[in-house]
Every structure is written in structure tokens, then in C-alpha cells.
């Protein structure tokens, strides 16, 4: 009987080998996949209990983990929750957004750059600590924008973005209405779920970061792109003559394009500078008709339309310029109407590109990543996104935009003693809802330190008073002043 017993022992060996191989597959090779399953409570629980790193603005933590005495070891807190929520996002038991999401690996301590720290923690038998994320945000600019929106009163919906033109550093990003991430990070999960559901179903959509996730017609601020194309492709200058009448008969249609309030822009033929000063629809629509839609689209794309360029926050919406246009729609598009749609960040990039001699820098939000002992692990270096226009075009546009703030629609953004360049926009949407007010610009005009874009999507201001300059101008001004006259 020994022969079958030997066969049997080989069979048993195979059984046990299969068990061991399968266990190895399950616990080693397949472990990552199982750990990443969103229903895996163990991983969520551990992440929720861990001492996450802080999110820093300057030297101030806008998100940090403090010891907690309940079922989890640490509680995530957001000292200035409402103001910074669009940036930090929230860290709840169920999900993460914003920097909490995009920098989760660093904050939780799982990032490979934190390997040495993890090893030290393991040897010392201390609980692993996450790394810190330092943002590019300038708290003064952020405060200025946040207070600016607050001053407009309750019920305001809008966003503001500020960028350092020479680097692409995002200096401020405000979206209103905002939410309190502390409620979502609460350890009382019923409360946190309730708060989340309330925010989710709030008609004013406080969970949306309007600075990067809302695309709306940019209106007259888009005339900067049209002017750029006109100068680059048609060789126009600030002194080129363009039609400036009170209306423009569009080809192939009976539709007639009017200026705001049906007024003339100051004569049958005016200069491009004058046209930008008063934001003349007739002039820019006729410039648009002289350009091909390919030229307009290419110019828009050089400024960042149709692209994803923000990797530091999740969910950046792509700004659009429509494809294949009939001449009347091209005229509409050239003044930022029809299906042209841009985020406030995109319009800030247009201003920043003009400010930086035509070179658009890739916007970024994470300045440095440090270990819990504040050793710098990584520092973001500015990179170019594209060259949108030539330095000559840039300086001509700057000159025109300065004129807008000095004597045109942008006067509310004037700063005494400083040359400010800017452009307003008032975009029509549907007749039933109020227009969107835009402002974009930069300062100082000759040595730009900050480029901004402000969008007021809805406010309690009466319809007739809504204008980009009046609503957005003061906020933009405050943001620019925070950098120029600290």
C-alpha cells in the first residue's frame, strides 16, 4: 500500500501548496486592489483615525488633525472653514474632496516621498504621521476676496481667482456660497451625513468650487481673446479703426446685434482701444467676423481653453470655445456669448498670460510638501503652459486694458498711484435670469504681480445695475491692493 500513500502525500503537498499560493495572492498581490475598494471599512477607519498632515497657508494651518477622545484618535479641524473650504475640501468618513483628496497620499503619510519618515515611525513604534502640504495661497489676497464677496450681502454666488503671472502660483481662490468642512468631518457620522445631504440638496450648490468647476459665458472679458487674435492674425493695433455704430446687421440672418442699451460706441469708426474701453459689442463682433472660427478657437486654446491644466485640485472644468461656427454665431462667440464658456480660473489665466508678456504659466496650488518634521520633500517649480501671444501683442493689450480701468468700464478697479489693467464683462444668459458680472485684470500694469478674475454669478443687485465693473471691480481691486500695498 506504500505506493498509493506516496502518491497521496504528493497530492496533499499540492493541496497545501495551492493554499499557500492562494493566500500569498490574496494577502500580497491582490491586497492593493482590496484595500482600494471603496467599501473597505478597515482602510477608511484607519485613514480616519490617523494623524493627517496639515494644509498650510503661509504659516497658518487651514486644516489640521487634533487629538480626539472619542472612537477615533484624531479630529480634522478647519479653523477658517468657510473661507478655505473650496481649497481644502473636506475629509469625511465617507469621502474627500479638494486638497484633502488630491494630496491624500501625502497627508495620510502613504506617499513614497515619506518613506523614510514612515520607517523612522515604525522603528520608534510611534503612530505614523502624515506630511504637510503648503499652498501657494497668499492669505491677504484670499481674505480680501472673501470679504469682498461677504460685503455684497447674502445670496451672492460667485468666485474669484488670483494668480501670480510670472509663475502661475494661485494666490487666492474663493467660491461663495461656501460650506463648513468641520460639519462634514464630524465624528458623529449621523450628523455628518445629515450635513452632507443638506449641502448636497442646497439649490445654491455650496459644495461646488465655482472658481474651477463652473463654466459660464465669459461675456465681454472674452474680448481680450478676440483682440489677441485680431492683433496676432490680422495685424491690428490699438489704433486700428473698427466699426463703432449702435448695431450690426449679422450676415445670413435677419438678426441684428446691438450694444448694451442700444447706444453707439462713439462714432461709425472708432479705434480698437476705444472699442475695448466701452466694451463695444458691434466692434468686436465685426472683428470676429473678419477672423475665421479656427483662428478664434486656436487663440482661445492657447490661453487654456479646451485643456485641463490644474492638477492640484480635482474636478477642474474644461473651458469651451464652440466648434464649427456660422458667421452670426462667430460674431456672438467673439463677444463671449453663445456657447463660449469659461471658468474664473480660465479668465484669470487670460489676464495672467497677457501680464506675463504672452506666456501662460501652468497654474498650481501646492507649493511645497513637507514631512511632519517640516523637512521639505518636494517643491513645485513653475512651468510654462503655452505661449498665447507675442510680447508685442501683450504690451499693446496691456496698454488697452490700462485705458479700460483709467477711463472705460473698469474704473471701479482703479488704485491710486498704480497702473491697473482690466476688462469687465456682463454676460447675458437667459432673459429670465440676471446676467453674470465678470472682471479680469492685473496690476501693476508694467510689472504685474497679480492677475485676477472675479465672477458674480448671482446677487441681490437689481438687474439694471449689474455690470462687471460695478460688482466685480471692487473685489478685484481689493485683491490687487493686498499684494501691491500690503
Amino acid at each position, binding site marked *: *500500500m*506504500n*505506493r*498509493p*500513500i*506516496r502518491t*497521496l*502525500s504528493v497530492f*496533499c*503537498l499540492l*493541496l*497545501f501548496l*495551492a*493554499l*499557500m499560493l*492562494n*493566500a*500569498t495572492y*490574496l*494577502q*500580497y498581490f*491582490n*491586497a*492593493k*486592489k*482590496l*484595500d482600494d*475598494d471603496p*467599501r*473597505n*471599512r*478597515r*482602510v477608511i*477607519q484607519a485613514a480616519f483615525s490617523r494623524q493627517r498632515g496639515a494644509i498650510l497657508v503661509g504659516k497658518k494651518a487651514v486644516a489640521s488633525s487634533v487629538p480626539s477622545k472619542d472612537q477615533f484618535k484624531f479630529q480634522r479641524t478647519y479653523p477658517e472653514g468657510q473661507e478655505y473650504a473650496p481649497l481644502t475640501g473636506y475629509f469625511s468618513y465617507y469621502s474627500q474632496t479638494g486638497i484633502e483628496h488630491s494630496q491624500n497620499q501625502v497627508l495620510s503619510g502613504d506617499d513614497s516621498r515619506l518613506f523614510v519618515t514612515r520607517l523612522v515611525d515604525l522603528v520608534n513604534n510611534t503612530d505614523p504621521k502624515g506630511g504637510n502640504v503648503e499652498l501657494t495661497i497668499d492669505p491677504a489676497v484670499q481674505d480680501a476676496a472673501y470679504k469682498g464677496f461677504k460685503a455684497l450681502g447674502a445670496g451672492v454666488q460667485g468666485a474669484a481667482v488670483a494668480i501670480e503671472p510670472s509663475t502661475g502660483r494661485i494666490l487666492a481662490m474663493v467660491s461663495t456660497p461656501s460650506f463648513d468642512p468641520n460639519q462634514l468631518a464630524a465624528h458623529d457620522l449621523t450628523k455628518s451625513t445629515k450635513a452632507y445631504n443638506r449641502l448636497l440638496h442646497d439649490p445654491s450648490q455650496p459644495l461646488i468650487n465655482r472658481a474651477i468647476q463652473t463654466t459660464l459665458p465669459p461675456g465681454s472679458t472674452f474680448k481680450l481673446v478676440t483682440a489677441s487674435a485680431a492683433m496676432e492674425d490680422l495685424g491690428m493695433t490699438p489704433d486700428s479703426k473698427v466699426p463703432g455704430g449702435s448695431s450690426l446687421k449679422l450676415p445670413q440672418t435677419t438678426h441684428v446685434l446691438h450694444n448694451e442699451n442700444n447706444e453707439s460706441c462713439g462714432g461709425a469708426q472708432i479705434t480698437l482701444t476705444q472699442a475695448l474701453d466701452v466694451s463695444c459689442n458691434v466692434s468686436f463682433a465685426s472683428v470676429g467676423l473678419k477672423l475665421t472660427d479656427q483662428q478664434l478657437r486656436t487663440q482661445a486654446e492657447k490661453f487654456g481653453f479646451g485643456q485641463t491644466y490644474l492638477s492640484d485640485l480635482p474636478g477642474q472644468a474644461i473651458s469651451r470655445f464652440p466648434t464649427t461656427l456660422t458667421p452670426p454665431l462667430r460674431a456672438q462667440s467673439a463677444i463671449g456669448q453663445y456657447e463660449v464658456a469659461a471658468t474664473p480660473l480660465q479668465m484669470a489665466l487670460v489676464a495672467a498670460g497677457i501680464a506675463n508678456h504672452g506666456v501662460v504659466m501652468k497654474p498650481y496650488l501646492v507649493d511645497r510638501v513637507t514631512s511632519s518634521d517640516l523637512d521639505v520633500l518636494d517643491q513645485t517649480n513653475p512651468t510654462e503652459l503655452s505661449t498665447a501671444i507675442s510680447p508685442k501683442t501683450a504690451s499693446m493689450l496691456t496698454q488697452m486694458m490700462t485705458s479700460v480701468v483709467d477711463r472705460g468700464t473698469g474704473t471701479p478697479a482703479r488704485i491710486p498711484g498704480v497702473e491697473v489693467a482690466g476688462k469687465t464683462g456682463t454676460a447675458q444668459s437667459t432673459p429670465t435670469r440676471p446676467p453674470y458680472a465678470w472682471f479680469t485684470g492685473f496690476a501693476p500694469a508694467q510689472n504685474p504681480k497679480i492677475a485676477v478674475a472675479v465672477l458674480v454669478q448671482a446677487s441681490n443687485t437689481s438687474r439694471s445695475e449689474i455690470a462687471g465693473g460695478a460688482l466685480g471691480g471692487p473685489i478685484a481691486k481689493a485683491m490687487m491692493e493686498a499684494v501691491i500695498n500690503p
Partner: protein
Amino acid sequence: MNAQTWAREFVHRQRRGAELFLLVLSLVVGVGGYAAVGIGVEQKVPADILGYGGWLTVLIVGAHVVVRFVAPYADPVLLPLVAMLNGLGLAVIRRLDLASGASHHGFARQQLIWMTIGVVLFAVTLIGMRDHRTMQRFTYTSGLGAVVLLLMPMLPGIGKDINGARIWIHLGPLSFQPGEVAKVLLVVAFAGYLVLHRDALALAGRRVMGVDLPRGRDLGPILAMWLISLAILVRQHDLGSSLLFFGLFVIMLYVATERRGWIIVGGGLFLVGAVAASRFIGHVQARVDIWLHPMQHYGTAAGPHSDQLVESMFGMAWGGLLGRGFGNGDPWRISYANSDFIMGAIGEELGLTAVLAIVLCYGLIVERGLRTAIICRDDFGKLLSVGLASSFALQVFVVVGGVTRLIPLTGLTTPFLSYGGSSLVANWVIVALLLRVSDHARRPLPDLSFSASEETTQVVRLP
């Protein structure tokens, strides 16, 4: 010197000292594990560590002393292996007790009592039965006993459904799973039966495509066993035992007859039964479905749900190579972590390393059992140890394979680790039987050689 004379003249050493040394190591695992659970979960060494450690030491040293006196030539590795597994199992059960809030009267205490009973029965078996061949006399008695035990849960009044399987009997405050005891009795019955009938089963038959197939009339026993297994499956919903008993019978039949034909017949019957069961028995169908698509049945409100399996898989993945350490994982998320799914709890907190080590230990137990079978001098002893060793191998494969999703989940206890009195006691008896056979097999033969010159009797030629 050829292999045969070598085997005849080779004298096994007792190796009791080696056994004692290994037992000390197993105690280190058991008591150390218990202390580690206290430190990991409650940040302090358990207050009763001395009492607990002392009790474990008394049991294990007691077992060793019994072996030393009544089975001095027994295999020295088996006892330390099972002592280690039992000690580790106690520690893990204690850890799960703490997670569920039980302080001192939890399952670990119960399990220690069962272990005590198991060790006592272990000693009684070794002391009371000096020669395993006496069991051969009870071939049919054991068979009958096994059938009665298996039928008992079906009796109204004492049988009870627990988690969809009717495998428990309750007598007053006592409850136990007769299947575990039936397993031992069945091995004895199979061994006794096959020793008597192996020639008939082995020799007759016809050759088909190079394989000897048995005669139709000899198929009786295997068909009977197949039907019994199916009955257990259909009536008691006990997939694990059904598989175990039938597999056991086929293996022993193959070893007894040395004919691969029986494996083909047995394998064919198994396949027919398995396919039919997975088609027509809802309970089995659900298990197969969960095995194939565990993630789709996780957290579902209706229908079969795979929460137990998926939580165990999450836990084992979370444990990774080295495990989270006692007290740092969430093994309480797995339902029945202390019985069927104890490997999931071990995988989570002690890691792949411990899982592999435990599977290796089981492998070693099987290997020592089969080794005993090979060197055993009588057929009954050979078959008995083959049966006991392969019951171990099958059970471990079925339960660990089920927990790690190698095969569909069936529901058997993990020998020596899982919480469960019947299983623990039955397994201690199995080890006692294996030690008894191995003592017999390794014991030197009495010196029967004498030289021709000293021959005192003469060959008498009969007219």
C-alpha cells in the same frame, strides 16, 4: 544493503527529549500569544497570565508524560504541532472575545475547558488502548455508531438548525456537533472494512483504456457512501462534512486497493454530485455564486450575501505580509471569526507570515501521519493513519481554501484553531490514535532471529 533490509534493521529512536523541547517552543507560542493579545488590546499583560500559562503548561506537559510512558516510540513532532496550534487558537479566540466585549467568561475560557477535556481523552485513549488493532474488532460497531451520530441532528427535539445547517444536537445544556466524532468512527470503520475486502475490490475488474475499472458489483460500498454524503448534504445542508466523508472514503479505497480506477469512479461520482448540488440545491447554489462573484454580493440587502467572506478577504489584505498585530486590526468585522473564519482573523492581525506558518504546520501533521502509515507494519494501522491524516488534509484544505476563496465556502472548523468543543476533542483523539499507531510502527521489532546452528526444532517430513 537493500531498502528492505535497511527498513527491517533500522531502529527508530524514541526522541522524547526532542518532543519536550518542541513542546516548550509551542508553549512559548501559546503563552506568548496570550500575553501579546493582552498587550495589544488592553496595553497590559493579562492579569491571569500565570494561571493561564500554568494551566496550559500542565496540560501539555501532562500529555507529554503520558506519551513518554505509554507510547515512548511515538512520533515526536505531532504533539508539539497540535499544542502550538491549540495555544495559538486560544490566543486568537481570546483576542476576539476582547473585541466583542466579553471579559473573562468568553469563548477562550470555554475553549480552554474543551482543550482540557480533549487532553484528558487523549490520555485516556493512549492509556486505555495499547494496540490500535483492537479497534479492528469494532469495524461495524463504529460504522453503525457513525451513522447514528450523523442521523441524530435530524431527530426532532435534540436536533437544531444553526445558520442553515442542521448539524448540531442539544441535550439539555450540552450541545455538540456529532459529525466531528462520526469522522473518527468512520475512519475506523472504513479501515476495518477495507482491510477485509481490499482483495476483492482490488483484483476483480476489467481494463478500459489502460485503467483498471472495478466490477459493477463491487461498486456497492462506494455508491452507498456517495448516497450517504448526498443525504448529509441535502438533509443537513452540510456541504463541508459531505465533501470530507466522501473524499475520505475514496482516498482510503484507493490506498487499500492500489487501483486508480477507484479514483476515477469516485471523482466521477463527486463531479456528478457537485454539479447536481450546485444546480438543484439552493444552499449550494448560493455558495458557488458567492465564490464566483463575492464583490457583487457584498452588503446586499436581499439574496445571498458574501459579507463574511469579503470582510475576511479585506481583513487578510489589510493584514498584508506581517499583519496589523494583535489589537490593531478589525477581525470583529468578520462574523464567526472565532470558528469557521479564524484564518481570516489570523491573516489580518498576524499576516501572511502566520498564515503560511500555520498551513505549513498542518502540512507537517499530514506528513507525519502519512509517514506513520508508510512505516506501519499492519494494514489496518496503515489505513487508519492514512484516513486520519487525509481527513486532516481535506478538512484544512476545504476550510482554509474556502476562507481564502480558493474554493467555495463550505463550513468546517479549522482543526485545533477554531472555537468548538466537539471538533477540538475529536481532533485530540485523532492525534492520540496517530501517536498510538506511530508508537507501534516505530517500536523496534522483538528480536526473532536465531541462527541455524542453534535451531532446536527440526523439519519433520510427513509421510
